[in-house]
């Protein structure tokens, strides 16, 4: 019977592309069709699996047992073998192997790049979130990073870039909009690299935005869709063109620059030049001139002297960002730059942070002044701590303080006439 069972197992394995070997030490899949009629054969199974499990410390190996098994042995084998199944389930053996993340040799002969399955992420995306707000939501569309910027450990903590199925994303957005959500942010460590890991089997980021835009056009709801955090390397004109077409795609672009100096960008391994960044901004200014521009900047990175920092200041003044998240460089364990000397002093970093923040305030104020007297749509989402008046955000995410506290406006998009402009915010009256 074991011989007959083994012949069937061999058939299944050959169908999966495995080749039989006579040398156990060369095998990556080892199995036993057990016989329980006497103890001695079962003792041999125990000895064998003990040896195989020692090999597992040094090499890649999957083990399985089937055949005739007593309940007591089955319980013990569960702790020692990778797979245990009755012969009646032999047909499911290929699926069991695949669930272990093994792509069978038959699949290996294709030219497709093989990426490890990231089941945890897919499972996480399937968990229904308990939304904390009734009008603002965050929808993950992508996880992981393949960029290896030298200051960042995310590729090592989050793993490879994986895109969530577009059907799931669109379903979640439709659900949120129907529930009355007004602000939806698409999330990913490289949100605009969406789809690139799927080798053409998924839509691209610009196509995803277009699908969302089309839905927005046909729905009767007013809502704004944002995205963060994109990488300039994968940003292209097509994304901006799509944003320009659809009202629901918010005219607010967050585009991390990190540094305005070519040498520092190279050392950061950002994989884009200032010319590329400049072209993206030029596209934004041409196609969606009303858009606000946000960025991320690191000051005090290894190799940033005063001339390099001044290039960042110049770039800031050139692009006139409305907001910047400015961080002082801090070596991260796991990131490549952690192995370099952190030569910029803490005082210099703080000074550069202060100087760039001053530039931010000037640029932001100049822009805010252009909005005086205009009536803007504002999503009311909070309360000012000092005055107790209601606050909100414009489509471009500029903070607006209105002239009163009105709880009934929370979560609503209302018209506000702008009456004054400060460095980083506006004030106005609800119309």
């Amino acid at each position, binding site marked *: 019977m074991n011989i007959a069972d083994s012949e069937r197992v061999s058939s299944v394995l050959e169908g999966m592309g495995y080749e039989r070997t006579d040398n156990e030490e060369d095998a990556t899949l080892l199995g036993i069709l057990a016989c329980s009629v006497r103890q001695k054969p079962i003792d041999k199974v125990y000895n064998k699996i003990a040896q195989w499990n020692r090999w597992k410390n040094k090499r890649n190996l*999957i083990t399985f047992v089937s055949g005739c098994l007593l309940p007591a042995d089955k319980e013990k084998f569960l702790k020692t073998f990778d797979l245990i199944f009755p012969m009646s*389930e032999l047909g499911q053996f290929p699926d069991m192997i695949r669930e272990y993340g093994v792509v069978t040799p038959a699949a290996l002969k294709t030219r497709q*790049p093989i990426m490890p399955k990231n089941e945890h992420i897919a499972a996480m995306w399937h968990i229904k979130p308990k939304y904390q707000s009734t009008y603002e939501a965050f929808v993950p569309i992508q996880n992981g990073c393949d960029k290896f910027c030298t200051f960042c450990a995310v590729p*090592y903590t989050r793993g490879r870039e994986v895109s969530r199925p577009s059907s799931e994303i669109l379903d979640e957005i439709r659900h949120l909009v129907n529930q009355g959500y007004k602000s939806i942010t698409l999330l990913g460590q490289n949100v605009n690299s969406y789809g690139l890991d799927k080798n053409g089997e998924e839509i691209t980021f610009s196509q995803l935005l277009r699908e969302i835009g089309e839905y927005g056009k046909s729905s009767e709801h007013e809502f704004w869709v944002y995205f963060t955090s994109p990488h300039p390397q994968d940003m292209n004109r097509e994304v901006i063109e799509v944003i320009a077409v659809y009202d629901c795609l918010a005219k607010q672009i967050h585009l991390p620059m990190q540094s305005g100096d070519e040498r520092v960008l*190279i050392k950061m391994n950002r994989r884009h030049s200032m010319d590329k960044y400049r072209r993206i901004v030029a596209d934004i200014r041409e196609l969606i001139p009303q858009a606000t521009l946000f960025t991320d900047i690191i000051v005090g990175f290894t190799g940033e002297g005063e001339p390099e920092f001044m290039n960042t200041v110049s770039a800031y003044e050139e692009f006139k960002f409305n907001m910047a998240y400015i961080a002082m460089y801090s070596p991260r364990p796991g990131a490549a730059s952690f192995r370099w000397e952190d030569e910029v002093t803490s005082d210099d970093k703080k000074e550069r942070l202060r100087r760039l923040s001053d530039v931010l305030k000037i640029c932001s104020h100049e822009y805010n002044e252009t909005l005086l007297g205009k009536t803007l749509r504002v999503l009311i989402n909070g309360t000012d701590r000092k005055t107790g008046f209601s606050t909100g955000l414009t489509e471009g995410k500029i903070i607006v303080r209105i002239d009163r506290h009105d709880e009934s406006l929370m979560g609503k998009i209302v018209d506000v006439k702008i009456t004054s402009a400060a460095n980083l915010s506006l004030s106005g009256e609800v119309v």
Partner: protein
Amino acid sequence: MSLMKPDMQMDVSFYKVEEIRHLTDETFSLKLPRARFAFKAGQHISLGIVGGNQSREYSIYSGENDENLELLIKEVDNGYFTPRLRKLKAGSMVEVHGPFGKFGMEPELAANGKFVFIASGTGIAPFRSIVHTYPGIDYRIIHGVRYSKEAYDREEYANDRYTLCTSRDKGGDYNGRLTGYLKTCKFDPETHFDLCGNSNMIFDALEILKDKGFERDQIHCEVYF
């Protein structure tokens, strides 16, 4: 009923080292089986030692159709990771993730373009991969090293296509840094430049090429860190 241990997973990113080839006292190549791996010449991978908790990125040294996956590695003095790599033997297990990156060659361009590959040290790795993959490509390599012994696998390149710049001995075709040599060169205006190596060399070479009138779009960079 099938009973499976849910926490057991076989990792398809594990590879067994087939051969370690020592090119100099400090530099070696690791040969792994290629069978599972598909990549584009110029891309890099993330390499770890099975059981370890660190990894590093390396350009793929072998061509897309070569029998093995090969990586070129230089041991870092007092480093943590590369001394451990250097102690690996045939049969050791490493972990490979990838491939990553967009540095490399468009097949259509490879057939018709003129290329200058500028590399410092082990930065020559992606260019060997490209030359192996596109044997008919019109290329020139300018390789900057400290010592002439660091002209890794020089015999694989035609003499008139490879210029060795040595900064610390006189065994090269040019004695001095590659940026010094680059300043003396004249290139066809349609040339594409690919640069790979340390960030200072890349930045200096970029400035030299821009001064020669080449557009930034003609120049592609891969930084080693």
